[in-house]
């Protein structure tokens, strides 16, 4: 295994060697791939405090698989999701931590927000206790600090390298991966666990806020609560989930004979600087173009573009305008999205949606979007896949978009590994 602080690592190639995930419709990569190909929904109706019955995406992974009951009770749902994904990714990668220097491992977890669930619960308890703050839990601070999900992974696995979260609204899932690339190339770590997580459906505030914004998806059938790009779309379905990858420098991965899912060949992060919530097509276009430039690829060399596509009226139109301006002339580029299947997994969205497409490098299929039947003419992208899966001769590149509030954009390009 290589050592730290080696300047030659600056231009290292970074590869994905393991995936651990939980989504509202699957708890591992292969099942998730089967679910997106077969249009399996993960959306259900559930009771949300103060909000009544709402559509949401909930995960059913076994919390006790990698975490003691005591530590689960002490920690957070976000921590439990993170621990599950981290351990599953390591197992998938065939990495045994007791054979590693724990200081050379980093954890980079994208989050949209953190601490709202615990704060809402404490305030609820406060009102049950006649507003007596003496009953406020001493667990509140460690549960709500922004690094909690990564910190719980560190504690659970004994990882002593840099472990932290990256707050980037709904662009965060890509951001965890990008941070990992930086840290691997700097030689700060030799192995990274990176991606994004979300526990959002366990807070009523996010539902109430989207409702107030006119952006909360609703339907009597919960599986139809969010319909990105469809003329009948009425908003977002709030979901939880997580997806963490093991990332390594290529030479390290090859040295240990690792399975390689793909190589991260380009990315870009930029900001709109224009509005708190409304996206900006021009900045999104710029983000994709710069990611392509950095990857040394032309638009027609991208096989799949995953849309962020949240199911809001304006957001979908803005993104489609941006994607059309970059890929509109390409006959080879196919477009899909995953939120119709699983809702909006917030901080996990980018990482999970990449996972939904990642195995296309093996099966050469473009999975279809779900819940799109009446395409909004303003979202009529060429090669949009929403019926049956599309088979290509070979799929070699994926561009994964993930955008967030306060105008943060991220585009990540993953390429099929070729020596």
């Amino acid at each position, binding site marked *: 295994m290589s050592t730290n602080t080696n300047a030659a690592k600056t231009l290292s190639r970074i590869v994905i060697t393991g995936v651990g995930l939980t989504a509202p419709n699957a708890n591992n990569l292969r099942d998730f791939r089967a679910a997106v190909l077969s249009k399996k929904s993960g959306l259900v109706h559930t009771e949300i405090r103060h909000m009544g019955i709402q559509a949401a995406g909930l995960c059913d992974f076994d919390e006790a698989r990698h975490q*003691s*009951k*005591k530590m689960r*009770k*002490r920690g957070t749902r976000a921590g439990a999701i993170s621990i599950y994904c981290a351990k599953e990714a390591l197992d998938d990668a065939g990495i045994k931590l007791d054979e590693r220097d724990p200081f050379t491992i980093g954890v980079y977890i994208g989050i949209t927000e953190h601490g709202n669930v615990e704060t809402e619960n404490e305030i609820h308890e406060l009102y049950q*206790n006649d507003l007596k703050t*003496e*009953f406020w*839990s*001493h*667990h509140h601070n460690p549960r709500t600090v922004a690094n909690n999900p990564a910190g719980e992974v560190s504690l659970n696995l004994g990882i002593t390298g840099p472990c932290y979260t990256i707050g980037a609204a709904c662009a965060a899932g890509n951001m965890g991966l990008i941070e990992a690339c930086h840290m691997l190339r700097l030689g700060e770590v030799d192995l990274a666990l990176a991606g994004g997580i979300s526990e959002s459906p366990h807070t009523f505030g996010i539902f109430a806020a989207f409702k107030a914004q006119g952006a909360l998806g609703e339907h009597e059938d919960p599986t139809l609560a969010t319909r990105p790009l469809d003329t009948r779309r009425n908003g977002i379905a709030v979901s939880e989930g997580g997806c963490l990858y093991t990332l390594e420098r290529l030479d390290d991965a090859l040295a240990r004979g690792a399975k390689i899912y793909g190589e991260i060949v380009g990315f870009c992060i930029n900001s709109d600087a224009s509005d708190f919530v409304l996206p900006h097509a021009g900045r999104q276009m710029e983000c994709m173009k710069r990611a392509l430039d950095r990857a040394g690829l032309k638009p027609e060399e991208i096989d799949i573009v995953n849309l962020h596509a949240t199911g809001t009226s304006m957001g979908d139109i803005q993104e489609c305008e941006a994607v059309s301006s970059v890929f509109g002339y390409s006959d080879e580029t196919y477009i899909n999205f995953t939120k119709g299947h699983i809702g909006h997994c917030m901080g996990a969205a980018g990482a999970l949606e990449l996972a939904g497409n990642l195995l296309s490098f093996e099966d050469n299929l473009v999975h279809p979007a779900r819940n799109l039947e009446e395409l909004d003419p303003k979202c009529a992208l060429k090669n949009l896949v929403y019926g049956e899966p599309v088979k290509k001769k070979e799929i070699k590149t994926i561009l994964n978009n993930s955008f967030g509030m306060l105008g943060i954009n991220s585009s990540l390009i993953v390429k099929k590994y070729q020596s």
Partner: protein
Amino acid sequence: MQPTEVRQIVLDIIADIALDDDVTKIDDSIALRDQLDLDSMDFLDIVMELKKQHKVEVPQEDYPKLATMESCVTYLTPKFQALQ
């Protein structure tokens, strides 16, 4: 309230904290930390639950008196009896 009842109250609280341990095998004379997976946050949980569930206050300077089950019962029994 009798010491046996106080012991059961403390045991129930600990059982809800040390969820992965078998609390039926606690040796009352040995430090709880030496036989269960308990740390400082867990002892704060015990103090909090005594206050929440039973209105029994344990000031910080008295935390060492919760070291063993035996010392818990000795210390807490008069407090529970005073509430009656």
